[in-house]
């Protein structure tokens, strides 16, 4: 069985009076079981060409519904004002600005449950990886 882990560290020495140092690791397993996730797209990059229209990154119809898929996204831009708006179907989740990353559970519960990205500028580069629970 493959083993995939995701570790997050949130740290700050000056946001609170006490130091914030939160670290946790999840071993990514299938929905309702302890079997490791079985698929991945691998790490990829996309450069969104001119016109910066909304782009469907993953189609909900292509993945098994109501599972424990996990999605990693990173905005590689170094221009502070540039962001990707992340949407599921037509609902905005939020914006990842330059250098920001996100790790999102995705259940692909309907054919319309697509992951969409909308860059704020031309020629932005998105890094992404999907771990799938097939």
């Amino acid at each position, binding site marked *: 069985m493959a083993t995939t882990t995701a570790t997050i560290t949130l740290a*700050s020495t000056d*946001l609170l009076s006490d130091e914030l140092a939160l670290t946790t690791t999840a071993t990514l397993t299938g929905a*309702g079981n302890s079997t490791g996730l079985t698929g991945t797209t691998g790490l990829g990059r996309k450069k969104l060409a001119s016109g910066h229209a909304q782009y469907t990154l993953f189609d909900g119809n292509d993945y098994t519904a109501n599972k424990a898929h996990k999605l990693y996204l990173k905005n590689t831009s170094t221009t*502070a004002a540039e962001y990707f708006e992340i949407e599921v179907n037509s*609902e905005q989740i939020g914006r990842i600005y330059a250098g920001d990353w996100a790790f999102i559970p995705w259940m692909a519960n309907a054919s319309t449950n697509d992951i969409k990205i909308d860059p704020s500028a031309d020629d932005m580069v998105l890094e992404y990886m999907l771990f799938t629970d097939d």
Partner: protein
Amino acid sequence: MATTTAAVTLTSDLLSDAMSVSASTTCMKAGTTADGLDQMEYGVVEIATGTAYDIICSTPTASKASKLYIKNHSTDETYYISVVLDAQAVGRLYGGDWMFIPADFHDANADIEITSTGGTNIVEYALFHEGTILTAS
């Protein structure tokens, strides 16, 4: 300015080549490089099976660079919380899973709702933001 960093490391042996991907970001206010997110909510709640709850009860300023961390502390692999945004299902966090997402709270309906399934789930959350509309007493 407060400095808060968020780092992730993903490792896997799914591929022929062992994979290790890391990223780190300093959580900044929207569109800036000089001013970090300086406010946060942090808590732990027990969520009983059934009802959907808003995990963030206040109303953060819309269309900013807020970041939301949620972890399901359940140890039962069949337990999960569903994460829904304005009636749009996003995903499930099973026992031990965590997520870190941008949350722009773009309108009054854009609440982050969670629903517990399987049993009572213990949910840890942290919201880093740059302002919120407090409820008048």
